[in-house]
């Protein structure tokens, strides 16, 4: 199914609740094939057409192994698409992460030999930012993610959630205009995920950045996003885009709203068949 075609638009949008969206990042006809196409290569992704609007919170859900992380790698410039074109702020993205793009990974990406403070300052130092400015930004970020008391601690002394906050802070200080998150809370317990989700929403509002979150958790996508892209089983394509219609000022308490259940139910209706296909169980009954 052609991507970037929103299914049933929600009433908020029809009523003009959203500003006219500007394309911030775009994928046009993007495919990624690992190995030699046509000679046993693995077709992991695509073709995908996707537009991320300026300042929106966009989530991608899909069955395991459908190419969600490949989509993020291609969009960030960490991977080169086999076919198609990727642009960020109108400029082509090819094999190099552009300035203004920050990425948070699922795995613990803290540097174990650096303190929390030095981990957060890592990118700024590499970029040659003035030391006084580094001090100002890192101190703010340490406070923002609630790690002021752990600034001199090493990652080994932190919980998994705290380490992920270090990675988020390291991205935050670079002032990215596009933040890509690859299942950043995948290894965390349910309560910590909710808290981290709220922190992520705070970060999104604070920075005004465009956010794309890759997640396998439907409730997480429904709670956090302005818009959700649903991917098919491999090779992953965007089979539907859903507008949530949530206000910009929101947090995890939105899960008690009536619409929340409707969104997650709709996501599951779309994903169930794809998940069965991905698990090799399609056609085995309803």
């Amino acid at each position: 199914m052609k991507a970037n075609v929103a299914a049933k638009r929600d009433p908020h949008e029809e009523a003009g609740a959203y500003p006219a969206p500007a394309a911030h990042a775009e994928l046009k006809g993007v495919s990624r094939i690992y190995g030699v196409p046509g000679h046993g290569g693995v077709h992991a992704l695509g073709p995908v057409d996707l537009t991320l609007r300026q300042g929106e919170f966009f989530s991608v859900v899909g069955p395991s192994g459908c190419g969600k992380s490949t989509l993020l790698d291609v969009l960030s410039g960490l991977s080169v698409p086999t076919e198609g074109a990727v642009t960020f702020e109108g400029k082509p993205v090819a094999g190099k992460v552009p300035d203004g793009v920050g990425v948070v990974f699922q795995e613990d990406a803290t540097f174990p030999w650096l303190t929390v403070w030095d981990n957060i300052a890592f990118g700024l130092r590499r970029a040659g930012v003035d030391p006084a400015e580094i001090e100002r930004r890192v101190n703010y970020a340490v406070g923002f993610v609630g790690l002021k008391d752990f600034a001199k601690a090493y990652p080994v002394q932190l919980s998994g959630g705290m380490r992920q906050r270090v990675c988020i802070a390291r991205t935050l200080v670079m002032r990215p205009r596009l933040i890509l998150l690859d299942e950043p809370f995948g290894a965390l317990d349910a309560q910590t995920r909710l808290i981290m989700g709220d922190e992520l929403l705070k970060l999104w509002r604070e920075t005004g950045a465009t956010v794309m979150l890759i997640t396998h958790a439907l409730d997480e996508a429904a709670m956090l996003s302005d818009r959700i892209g649903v991917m098919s089983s491999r090779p992953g394509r965007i089979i539907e885009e859903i507008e949530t219609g949530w206000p910009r000022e929101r947090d995890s308490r939105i899960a008690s709203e009536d619409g929340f259940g409707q969104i997650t139910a709709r996501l599951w209706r779309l994903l169930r068949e794809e998940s069965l296909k991905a698990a090799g169980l399609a056609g085995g009954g309803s």
Partner: protein
Amino acid sequence: MSWAGWLRLIVVTGAVLLLEVLCRAGVIAKTVLPAPSVMAGDLYRLLASGAASADIGETLGNVAMAVIASILLGFVAGVAIHAMPRVRRALDPFLATYYAVPFFVFYPVLIVIFGLGAAPIVVIGTLFGVVAMLINTLNGLDRIPRVLLKTARVHGMDPVRTALMVKLPSAAPYLFTGAKLAIAYCFIGVIAAEFIMSSSGIGYSIAYAFNNFDNARMYALMLFIIVLVTVLNAVLFTWERRIMQRRRR
């Protein structure tokens, strides 16, 4: 000190005291083994007289050269081989069986090539140490989490900066282990080589004392070596444990 540390101290002290009692009681003849307190006294007098200073200096110099050569060559070769997976697959069996080769059989060849003097001894020491460093360099590079390399790319780091700021610190615990093993192997290689192919150094001096029934000098030098490598190893072990504790996830 930890409970295990106290236990170690008690075991070592107990063993020394037992040996002391057995030697003093005549159970062990003093022509076979002098009491540890006698050995310590002999060592003190030997060091104070300066009679062994030249030999000690020569051995430590040879060990230092072998350690530096082992660490540099092992690290550079490890980085190069890691970058060439096919070469590595071909070399893997040789690296795995490397320490099964008795290098001392090559000593006539080394003397022919390098002549008499320090060079063949340093070469033997290096041959002992280099592969420990090389294997640990490969291990360290293998174990760099991919996500850290991706993070380096996200921050726009070039290969040189990635190597210096991410790869090297990430592999540091393994490199340290390699260096620690290289030091131990170099000591073994150098002192053993001095036994058979030198006219100076601690190894030569021990062999000379043995051949001339000079038990006092022989045991004093043996005690010196044991104390030196034990202290050195304890310092390196403590340092290594601190590094590893910081890295444990």
